C-alpha cells in the first residue's frame, strides 16, 4: 500500500530534477557520419535484454565495425522513464533499443533525432528493411529508427481435435468467419459447468487490428492522424471476434482456462488438448516445438476473408537520443546490427546450436527483407507439422501490415484495447465501446499532433 507514496515521491523527485531541453533536435549533417571513420571511447546502449546466441553474434560484429570503440550495455528492457529522464537531464545513452510503437512518441517529444543524416552518411540502404517495419519508424517524412525483428501471427491448431470434429485448418484460418464460429461451437467442450476445451481463441484484445484488417479496415489512417476505431468494419470485426467467445460460454470462462494453462511449458494448451485453434505470434511455434514436439499440430497463415495471408507486425528499432555524445558511432552500430551479413552470421550461430541440440532451425524474422530471404534458405527441416508452420510464418511475414507511427502511440493503443476489453467484460456493446474509443483516441491524436506541429515549425 505504501508503494504509491514511494512512487509519487520518486516521480516528484524525478520531475523536480528534470530539466527540459525544449524544442526539436537540430538535424546533424550527413558529412559527420562517415562509413570509413574509426571510433574510440565507449558508446552506451540502453534497452537490450535477453541476450542469446543471435544477439551475441550481432553485438560482436557491430562492435567490431566501430573500429575500436567499446560498447556498454544497460541490461534489461527499455525503461521509458529512465530513458526520458536521461535525455532531459542531458546525459542520455548513445543508442536506445525500443519497441517500434514507441518511436513516434519519442520523436514527437524530441527525445530522439531524425536519422536522415545518419542514413545518408553511413550509406544505409533503407530499401532492405521490411516496408511495414520502416513505416512504424517513419514520422513526418523522416526515419527515426533503424528497424529490426518482426513478430507476425499465424494460425495454430490442434490437429487431433480438428480431425475428431471433422474439421481442417482451413476452417479456422480466418478465411471464413462463419466457419470459425461453427468450429468454435464444435471444438469447445464443457463438463460440470466448466469449460474444458477452448474451441477457438480469437486472442482479443491484442489482435483486434488483425481482425479489423482481415475485414478490410485500418484502425488508423496511413498518415497516423485520423483514428478509425468506429468504422463499421471495425465494429463488425470486434462483434465477430468477441462473439466467438460467447459461443463457448463467454470470455470469462475462456480467459480463466487460458490463465490456468502452462503456456510456456510441457503442459501447454495444445499438448493438453485444451485448445482447438488460435492465431498466435510465430515465436510460439518454437515454444511448442521445444516443449511438446510430439503434439499433433496443424499450421497455416492467418487469412483475410478472401483467403489471402495476413499478419499484424511489430518489432524493435534502434534510435539515437537527442544529446547523445557519440551519434556517429551509434549510427554505425545500428547499421551493422541490421546488415544482411550480420543476420546471416547470427542465423548460422543459431543453426549450429540447434543442430547440436538435434532440433530444427525454424528461422528468424529480421525486419530486413534481404536478410529474411537469406535466412529462409538456411532453414533446417524439422519434419511435419513444423515445416508447414515455418512456411506459414514466412508467408505471413511477406504479407504483413503495421499501425502507422504517430505521436500518441500509447494512448491510441490504450483506447482500442480498452474498447475491446469493455466488450469482453460485458460492460458495453461493440458499437458504443468503439464510439467512445474513437473520441478518446482522436482527442489524444489531435493534441499530440498539435504538439508536434508546434515543435517542428
Amino acid at each position, binding site marked *: 500500500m505504501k508503494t*504509491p507514496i514511494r512512487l509519487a*515521491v520518486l516521480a*516528484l523527485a524525478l*520531475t523536480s530534477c528534470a530539466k527540459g531541453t525544449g524544442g526539436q533536435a537540430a538535424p546533424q549533417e550527413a558529412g559527420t557520419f562517415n562509413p570509413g571513420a574509426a571510433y574510440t571511447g565507449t558508446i552506451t546502449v540502453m534497452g537490450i535484454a535477453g541476450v542469446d546466441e543471435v544477439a551475441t553474434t550481432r553485438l560482436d560484429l557491430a562492435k567490431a565495425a566501430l573500429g575500436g570503440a567499446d560498447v556498454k550495455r544497460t541490461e534489461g528492457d527499455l525503461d521509458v522513464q529512465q530513458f*526520458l529522464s536521461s535525455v532531459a537531464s542531458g546525459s542520455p545513452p548513445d543508442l536506445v533499443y525500443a519497441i517500434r510503437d514507441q518511436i513516434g512518441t519519442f520523436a514527437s517529444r524530441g527525445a530522439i533525432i531524425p536519422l536522415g543524416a545518419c542514413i545518408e552518411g553511413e550509406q544505409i540502404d533503407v530499401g532492405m528493411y521490411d516496408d511495414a517495419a520502416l513505416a512504424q519508424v517513419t514520422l513526418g517524412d523522416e526515419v527515426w529508427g533503424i528497424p529490426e525483428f518482426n513478430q507476425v501471427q499465424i494460425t495454430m491448431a490442434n490437429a487431433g481435435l480438428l480431425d475428431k470434429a471433422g474439421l481442417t485448418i482451413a476452417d479456422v484460418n480466418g478465411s471464413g468467419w462463419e466457419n470459425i464460429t461453427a468450429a468454435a461451437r464444435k471444438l469447445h467442450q464443457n463438463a460440470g459447468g466448466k469449460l474444458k476445451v477452448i474451441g477457438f481463441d480469437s486472442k482479443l484484445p491484442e489482435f483486434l487490428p488483425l481482425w479489423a484488417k482481415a475485414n478490410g479496415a485500418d484502425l488508423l489512417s496511413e498518415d497516423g492522424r485520423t483514428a478509425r476505431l468506429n468504422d463499421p468494419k471495425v465494429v463488425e470485426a470486434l462483434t465477430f471476434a468477441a462473439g466467438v467467445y460467447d459461443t463457448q460460454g463467454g470470455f*470469462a470462462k475462456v*480467459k480463466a482456462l487460458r*490463465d490456468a494453462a502452462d503456456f510456456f511449458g510441457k503442459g501447454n494448451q495444445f499438448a493438453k488438448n485444451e485448445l482447438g485453434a488460435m492465431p498466435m505470434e510465430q515465436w510460439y511455434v518454437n515454444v511448442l516445438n521445444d516443449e511438446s514436439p510430439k503434439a499433433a499440430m496443424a499450421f497455416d497463415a492467418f487469412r483475410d476473408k478472401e483467403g489471402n495471408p495476413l499478419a499484424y507486425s511489430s518489432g524493435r528499432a534502434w534510435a539515437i537520443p537527442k544529446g547523445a555524445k557519440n551519434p556517429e558511432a551509434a549510427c554505425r552500430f545500428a547499421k551493422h546490427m541490421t546488415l544482411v551479413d550480420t543476420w546471416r552470421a547470427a542465423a548460422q550461430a543459431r543453426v549450429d546450436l540447434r543442430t547440436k541440440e538435434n532440433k530444427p532451425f525454424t528461422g528468424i524474422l529480421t525486419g530486413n527483407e534481404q536478410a529474411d530471404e537469406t535466412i529462409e534458405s538456411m532453414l533446417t527441416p524439422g519434419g511435419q507439422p513444423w515445416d508447414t508452420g515455418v512456411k506459414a510464418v514466412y508467408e505471413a511475414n511477406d504479407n504483413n501490415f503495421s499501425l502507422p507511427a504517430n505521436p500518441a502511440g*500509447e494512448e491510441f493503443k490504450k483506447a482500442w484495447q480498452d474498447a475491446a476489453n469493455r466488450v469482453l467484460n*460485458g460492460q458495453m456493446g461493440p458499437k458504443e465501446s468503439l464510439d467512445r474509443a474513437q473520441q478518446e483516441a482522436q482527442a489524444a491524436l489531435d493534441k499530440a499532433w498539435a504538439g508536434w506541429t508546434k515543435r517542428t515549425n
Partner: protein
Amino acid sequence: MRRRDTRAALLFISPWIIGFLIFTLWPVLYSGYLSLTDYDVINDPNFVGFDNYAALFEDPKIGLAFRNTLIFAAMSVPAQLVVALALALLLNAAARATGFFRTAFFLPKMTPPVAVGILLLMLFNGQSGLINSVLGVFGIDGPSWTTDPGWVKPGLVLMSLWTVGATVIILLAALRAVPQELYDAALVDGAGWWRRTLRVTVPMISPTIFFVVVVDTIGALQSFTEAYTAFFGSGNTTYSNDAALFYVIYLFQQAFEFLHMGYASAMAWVLFIVIMAITVVQVLVSRRYVHYEGRP
C-alpha cells in the same frame, strides 16, 4: 544550556531535515507547480494555469476511477478491521503459542504486493481457483472474480485481507494494555464475553481502532500495486478491467504511460485534498466515538 541542547538536537536531526526538504517537501511543492503546466519530462513545462484541473472535471475516467476507489475503500477498510480485530481477540485469548500465531498472521504481510496481485489471479481463477473450488464443495457456483466487473472489487477486498497481519499486531498490543480490573469488574457485574468485548474492550482500544481506520483509509484510497499487477500489468499486457481502475492506477497511466506529468500532478493534488477532507471528517466523527483515557 537550553540553547546548546537545542543546537545539538538540531544537529542530530539535520540529516533527516535536509532529506525531508530535498526529497519530500521540494518535490511536493514542485508538483504543485507542475500541476499548472503541460509537461512531458523532455520539454520545458508550459504554464497552462488551471487547465489541468478544469480537464479533470471533463474526463469521464476520473469519475470512474474515484468511484472505484471509494467503493473499494468503503468495503476493504471495515472488512480489514473486523477480520483483524477478530484475529487479535483470538490471539489475546490464546494461552499458548501466541508468539507462533503472531508470526504466522504477520508473515503474509511480508509477501511483495506484486506477488499478491499474481496470487489473486490464481486463487480467484473462475474455473480452477482455490476460492471457487472451496465454494463448489458447498454447492456454490463461484463467480468470475477476475473478469466480471461486478466481482472484481469484492475479489480485491478479499485479497486485501491477506495482508491484515500488521493490523492484527497493532490491535493485539492495544488489547494487552486494557486493564484486567475492568474485565474483573464487568465479570462481577455479570457481563458475558460479548458484552465485555462491546462495553469494555472496544471503548478501551477505540483510539487504536481510530488510528487503524485512518491509516487503512488512506492506504485504500492510494491502492495501486495489487490491482495494477492483476488487471493492468504482468500477464495482462493487453487485457484490463475498468472495474479495477483505481485513482492511483489512472494517475500512474497518465504520468508514466502517456507522459502527462502536469495532468498527473493535478490528479495527485486533488487526491491529496480528498484524503485530507475524509481524514478531517473521520477526526470529527471520532470525537464522539473514541475514548481517550484521562480525557474529561
